[in-house]
């Protein structure tokens, strides 16, 4: 949250340090010098300094406007989605777990037309589960790489731990949601992002073309799917994205379907 260009942490820091200075001044003016170290006012002042520095450390610089961030995160996705659709893309994108140890998650988008076989970079057209489709790196690939390199991200293979890791990434590392709730019903896993930062861009994209979301998932939907695919080593597809503005805080619900493990078959 930002107030007049200052984050709430920074405001809290200024307030506590100012309060500490005021208390110390009152202590100096009202107490005798030999009782300084036993003055309750000085202790309150020390509390304020310790708390203020704590808030200062929690503050992250270089905060950009949430609306701008949401627009930037959606840049190019409508054009890419329409291109994929024009090339025969349909249905939902499937995130495939890494084929080898140390490999990357790939995204399979079913297409109606047959085309060029698999390219050298791992992308191109291929068969998967009997249907032809385009295989490409998901939009979140660079983010995952950055998180692993810069934030020492670990993706556990146990379901509950993995969900905790996803919450950490969304709430603490990327700070895109205030709180993340996870529900599971059978093979469907739903993530409720409370106060989702990139909501405006996401809403405008779904309003313009609802089918694009599941055909060509944006960076954050793609990021969560990639983390699940890599952690649990299973296929996953984005089911639907819904928004609920009726509650106290707006909630963005993203539903995924866990699929059975299967590898891509390269055509002859």
């Amino acid at each position, binding site marked *: 949250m930002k107030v007049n260009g200052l984050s709430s942490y920074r405001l809290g820091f200024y307030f506590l340090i100012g309060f500490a200075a005021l208390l110390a001044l009152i202590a100096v003016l009202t107490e005798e010098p030999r009782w300084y*170290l*036993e*003055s*309750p006012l*000085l*202790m*309150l002042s*020390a*509390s304020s300094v*310790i*708390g203020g*520095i*704590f808030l*200062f*450390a*929690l*503050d*992250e610089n270089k905060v950009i406007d949430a609306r701008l961030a949401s627009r930037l995160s959606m840049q190019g996705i409508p054009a890419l989605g329409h291109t994929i659709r024009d090339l025969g893309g349909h249905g939902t994108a499937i995130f495939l777990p890494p084929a080898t140890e140390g490999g990357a998650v790939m995204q399979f988008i079913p297409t109606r037309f047959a085309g060029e076989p698999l390219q050298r970079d791992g992308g191109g057209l291929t068969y998967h589960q009997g249907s032809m489709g385009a295989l490409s790196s998901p939009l979140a690939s660079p983010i995952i790489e950055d*998180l692993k390199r810069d*934030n*020492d*991200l*670990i*993706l*556990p293979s146990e379901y509950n*731990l993995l969900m*905790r*890791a996803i919450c*950490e*990434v969304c709430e*603490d*590392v990327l700070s895109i949601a205030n709180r993340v709730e996870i529900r599971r019903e059978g093979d469907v896993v739903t993530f409720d992002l409370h106060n989702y930062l990139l909501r405006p861009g996401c809403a405008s994209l779904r309003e313009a073309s609802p089918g694009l979301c599941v055909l060509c998932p944006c960076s954050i939907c793609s990021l969560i799917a990639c983390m699940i695919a890599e952690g649990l080593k299973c296929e996953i597809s984005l089911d639907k994205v819904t928004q609920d503005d009726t509650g106290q805080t707006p909630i963005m619900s993203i539903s995924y379907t866990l699929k059975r493990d299967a590898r891509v078959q390269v055509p002859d």
Partner: protein
Amino acid sequence: MVWMLTMNGLINLSYGSEVGFFITVALAGFFIVLYMIYPVFSRPRYIRSLNHVAIVYALFLGLVVVHRVLELITYWG
């Protein structure tokens, strides 16, 4: 802050108010809070800043403890 205010109140109630003791208790609370909020699977940017603050606070805590030990040695000596 709640922890520090509570400790401040308790110390004053027990008539044992002394800044060194209070800082020790307050910083112990800080380290407990830091341990509780420390992420397991990732390292957000703010954790690096908190690590630096924790190092400085640990040194400060060490200074307070050393000062108290020296006081005791002088007293017993």
